[in-house]
């Protein structure tokens, strides 16, 4: 009976998502590739908010991120400040990204970089880095469902079988991703986001209140749980800084996160979405970490910290376990679907399109790419299904890689002088540095006080970008082209007498 409740709850969620998606298809139109990739730049602030939150927080928040807090204490908070700082950055990115996107029919992050630098090489290198770094998150998503379906079976299905169920659910959800593209993602994110991050936050605080009144408070824990690595620590005094820095800079480099900016109606909509997302990200993140830390004293959590969410929920009975599982499934569906759609669109638009030498207009190219990536990720998820505790390490490796787009992305958007040569050389140098160091030193680089491979790669990357730009400046014609791009970003002010060019104090630096 318990298994019927658990799996039945997931079936109900799935039915609700499909119902919402099918309703949104009524009166739909045949879509071209732009519509498939950007949903026609048509969504308002609440849809944009839930799409951002559902894409930003993956389902593995409930598994490996909660597990990190349960095992290691307050260092598990690191994703909260980087998420909030990413929202601050969202403000700064809103106008230039949306204006350029709309004026030039941009469909992907790599497309935007190709426009900014007027370079196919930059576009392809950025696309390939984005695809390679994002791929582990598809595997993470599918594996986090393995744990869900193991727990929702209440002992009847083990992990080696649950992985197939998880993959089947994710693949089934992708039918609508393939058919509807970005529009299906955003509509689905509203349902999934409400379940995972509104209902999920309520569930978190309910369980936390129960823990704190049932003898599992913070008083039972030692001071090491409430200590960040400082000078003289084994981890290194700059390890926490490295995690947050890589997260905030790398966050907007994810193709699926970035493309959410294209689906919104305009810059004001994106900014309003940021205001709405900030408290939600904060409450959910803080609540989850506090729950995991307080729950670390519950029997069984020390032995399996990644399962803290389900073990704590299990103390309250099968209905609560089912609710906990539904939250993870909703969060995972949102993240995996967005990731697949963005990577499929990027593969079609910025790899296949460039190789063919013509702009992709047929949505079917993206659909095929999404389907192939889904099958490939499923194969990897099956082959690594028994290594759940390594999920965070995998996430950190991919962050080290994706963060190497940051100098090219941010300096390209906010600094007029950056060149295509600087962007290409810096991305390759940063990625190679980060990959080599990450392979040699998975946690942090020895002798650098806990600084991670990703941050060292970023330092090399940014230095190369600036030096190459200054040594080999763009020719006059290219500077004039870039000036026209940046001038287009200037905001028409509602208060003409005090209008700063570029609004928000974001006038690009000459």
């Amino acid at each position, binding site marked *: 009976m318990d298994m019927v409740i658990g799996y039945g709850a997931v079936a109900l969620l799935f039915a609700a998502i499909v119902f919402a998606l099918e309703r949104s298809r009524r009166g739909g139109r045949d879509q071209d590739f732009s519509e498939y990739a950007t949903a026609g730049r048509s969504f*308002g*602030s609440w849809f944009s908010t839930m799409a951002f939150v559902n894409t930003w927080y993956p389902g593995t928040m409930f598994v490996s991120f909660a597990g990190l807090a349960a095992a290691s204490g*307050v260092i598990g*908070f690191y994703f*909260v*400040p980087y998420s*909030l*700082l990413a*929202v*601050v950055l969202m*403000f*700064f990115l809103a*106008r230039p990204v949306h204006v350029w996107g709309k004026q030039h029919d941009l469909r992907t992050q790599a497309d935007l970089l190709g426009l900014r630098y007027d370079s196919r090489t930059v576009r392809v290198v950025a696309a390939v880095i984005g695809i390679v770094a994002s791929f582990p998150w598809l595997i993470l998503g599918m594996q986090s469902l393995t744990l869900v379906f193991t727990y929702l079976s209440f002992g009847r299905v083990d992990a080696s079988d649950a992985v197939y169920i998880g993959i089947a659910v994710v693949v089934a959800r992708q039918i609508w991703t393939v058919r509807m593209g970005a529009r299906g993602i955003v509509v689905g994110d509203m349902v999934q986001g409400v379940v995972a991050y509104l209902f999920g936050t309520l569930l978190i605080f309910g369980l936390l209140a129960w823990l704190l009144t049932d003898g599992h408070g*913070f*008083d039972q*824990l030692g*001071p*090491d749980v*409430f*200590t*960040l690595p*400082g*000078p003289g620590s084994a981890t290194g*005094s*700059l390890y*926490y*800084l490295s995690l*947050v*820095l890589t997260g905030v800079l790398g966050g907007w480099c994810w193709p699926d996160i970035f493309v959410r900016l294209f689906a*919104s*109606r*305009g*810059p*004001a*909509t994106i*900014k*309003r979405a*940021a*205001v709405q997302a*900030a*408290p939600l990200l*904060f409450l959910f*993140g*803080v609540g989850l*970490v*506090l729950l995991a830390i307080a729950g670390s004293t519950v029997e069984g959590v020390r032995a399996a910290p990644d399962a803290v969410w389900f073990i704590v929920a299990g103390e309250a009975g099968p209905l609560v376990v089912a609710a906990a599982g539904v939250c993870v499934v909703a969060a995972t569906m949102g993240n995996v679907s967005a990731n697949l759609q963005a990577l499929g669109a990027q593969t079609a638009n910025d790899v296949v399109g460039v190789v063919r030498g013509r702009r992709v207009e047929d949505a079917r190219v993206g659909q095929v790419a999404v389907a192939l990536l889904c099958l490939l990720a499923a194969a990897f998820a099956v082959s690594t299904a028994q290594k759940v505790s390594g999920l965070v390490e995998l996430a950190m490796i991919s962050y080290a890689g994706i963060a190497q787009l940051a100098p090219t992305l941010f300096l390209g958007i906010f600094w007029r002088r950056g060149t295509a040569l600087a962007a290409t050389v810096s991305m390759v140098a940063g990625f190679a540095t980060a990959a080599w160091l990450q392979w040699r030193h998975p946690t942090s680089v020895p002798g650098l006080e806990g600084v991670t491979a990703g941050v060292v790669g970023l330092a090399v990357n940014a230095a190369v970008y600036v030096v190459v730009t200054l040594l080999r400046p763009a020719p006059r014609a290219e500077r004039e082209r870039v000036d026209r791009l940046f001038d287009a970003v200037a*905001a*028409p*002010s*509602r*208060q003409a*007498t*005090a*209008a*700063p060019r570029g*609004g*928000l*104090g974001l006038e690009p630096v000459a």
Partner: protein
Amino acid sequence: MQPDAGARRRRAIAALALAALVLTLFPPLQWWLADGDKAVTLAYFLLSGLFVVGSVVAIARLDEADEPTEDER
């Protein structure tokens, strides 16, 4: 409206963003506040997060004068 109101808004926005960065990314502050004391450590994470959330709201208010809202209609 003062002629330099836009410049003041831009400075205020930059100051808020900088304060958020320092509060969440400055290692000595974290070594000092997250050093084993439960109440102080948890207060640091909660209050610094609340500050950033408040900064986002404040930045939005400051930015309203410069960002047209036509796309919300």
